[in-house]
């Protein structure tokens, strides 16, 4: 039923170039030159230097920094954190999108604003507010430490900080897509006698699968790379609370530049792979659903 949406997304205007023959060849050449120059200096150069520096001391240094104990630990911790963050945000995203797009209720704008809030908050502030809640003199810190639960300077704190900065990345595309799809499919299923859960699993979930995957991809990428918020709550304990980006920082500050760039190149490769998948997924989504950098 929704295939028309998907198809119309497939031939997005990327493919058919608008005829803009209006600009003179000189202006055209000039604008293209500026674009090449600006993007090369600002984006291509830093990306290139990551890989150049990673292999600057030869591939043996590169490999030994990747398989060092601290790096492997950081990788494991980052994977663990991501494994908690992404499913939690997916469940929240589906739930929030269902509530916001299938019903009308007072306070809807408040809920939407709360979902947008993390985009306005500096990652450092995001980490800091968690310290205020879970720190030794915070609201929940003393209670939890008496129960033997350690949040700050350990994995739960890192998970919470990452959730704070990433949850809109899954919720927003889902809300946008479900808003555009309306309720007709679900109403049909319900009137044919399907239960609520069955309708959700067999109608809604397949309808939004690409948006869910898209948000999950962006959320995974950010979970791997989140630095500011995690930096505040982790306490920088090497081999214990250092995630991959914190490990890069630690190596760089220790003047182990080649090792820092070796780990950084791994993260940069993941970023490039993420972008390729993002590009593929965006062709399956209607306009207006993609990009957390875009406001509604």
């Amino acid at each position: 039923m929704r295939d028309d949406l998907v198809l119309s997304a497939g031939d997005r205007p990327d493919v058919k170039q608008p005829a803009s023959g209006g600009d003179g060849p000189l202006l055209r050449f000039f604008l293209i030159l500026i674009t090449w120059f600006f993007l090369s200096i600002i984006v291509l150069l830093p990306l290139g230097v990551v890989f150049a520096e990673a292999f600057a001391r030869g591939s043996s240094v590169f490999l030994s920094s990747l398989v060092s104990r601290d790096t492997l630990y950081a990788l494991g911790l980052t994977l663990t954190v991501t494994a908690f963050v992404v499913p939690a945000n997916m469940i929240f995203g589906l739930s929030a999108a269902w509530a916001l797009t299938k019903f009308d209720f007072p306070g809807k704008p408040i809920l939407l604003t709360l979902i947008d809030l993390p985009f306005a908050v500096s990652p450092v502030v995001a980490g800091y507010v968690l310290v205020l809640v879970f720190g030794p003199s915070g609201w929940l810190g003393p209670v939890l430490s008496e129960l033997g639960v350690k949040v700050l300077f350990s994995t739960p704190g890192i998970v919470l900080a990452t959730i704070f900065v990433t949850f809109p990345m899954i919720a927003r595309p889902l809300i946008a897509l479900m808003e555009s799809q309306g309720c007709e499919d679900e109403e049909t299923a319900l009137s044919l006698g399907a239960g609520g859960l069955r309708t959700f699993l067999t109608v809604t979930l397949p309808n939004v699968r690409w948006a869910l995957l898209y948000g999950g991809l962006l959320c995974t990428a950010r979970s791997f790379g989140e630095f500011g918020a995690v930096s505040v709550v982790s306490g920088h304990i090497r081999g214990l609370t250092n995630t991959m980006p914190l490990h890069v920082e630690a190596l760089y500050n220790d003047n182990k530049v080649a090792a820092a760039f070796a780990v950084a190149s791994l993260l940069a490769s993941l970023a490039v792979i993420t972008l390729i998948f993002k590009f593929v997924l965006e062709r399956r989504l209607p306009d207006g659903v993609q990009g957390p950098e875009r406001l509604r």
Partner: protein
Amino acid sequence: MNLQASPSLRSAGRPRRSMPGFGLSLGYSTVYLSFVVLLPMAALAASAARLDFEGWIKVLSDDRVISALKLSFGSALFAACVNLVFGPVCAYALVHFRFPGRRALDALVDIPFALPTAVAGIALASLYAPSGPMGKAILELFGVQVGYTPLGVTLALIFVGLPFAVRTLQPVLRDLDGEAELAAALLGADRPRIWRRVIIPSLAPAMVTAFALSFARGAGEYGSVIFIAGNFPRLSEIAPLLIIIRLEENNYAGASAIAVVMLLVSLSCLVLINLFQALIRRRLGYA
């Protein structure tokens, strides 16, 4: 299917209480948001409320705090301005022209968004440090030091804000699709006039959004900046770093005050663009 163009969906078929799961989905979302967002934000408000008026004055009149806030907001403002010039140029060229490397450049625009900030940070630092290849060249050619100065901070924030500037404008430029331009040309307008009266006005709302997003993101940025900034107090120390320093000194009041100021500025920024967009939408008649 453009969401902005289909607000009729919003009002059509609405009281929908026949759908199941209202209590469960709204309840779960509210609890999740309360725990993840509201509780920490309330803790910040409570912590800031402990400061009386004089306390605020004392924290915010510290010249180290003032220069950190000035640096973060000033360089974010400057970077947003640079992106406001180059963002539209890049977006226009990427949408309207076919040229070698167009697809690759288009993909590159997303890199600052996807690349972990710490990775971007060390890359920029090693390029633009006085001993780095770019830093050295610029120092010798122009006598200007980039790394470990406010200029370096601004450069990092240009990098960070770029995707916001380009990606906000691209869909608007695609929707222009030459028809209005063609109509203007047929009515006898020359090219500069078409730029002035057709292309730039239709870009203006998106440009405001691009500017605000780029600014709000830049002001709070931490990872890409701290390596290239050098972090000299009163010279190149950004506000988010000062929050961390105050926290490490156990000075919660000082940290909260800076955090609240930063939060208020970015929030009002986002509220303003939302209002502005609503206004534009109403004036264009598809509210």
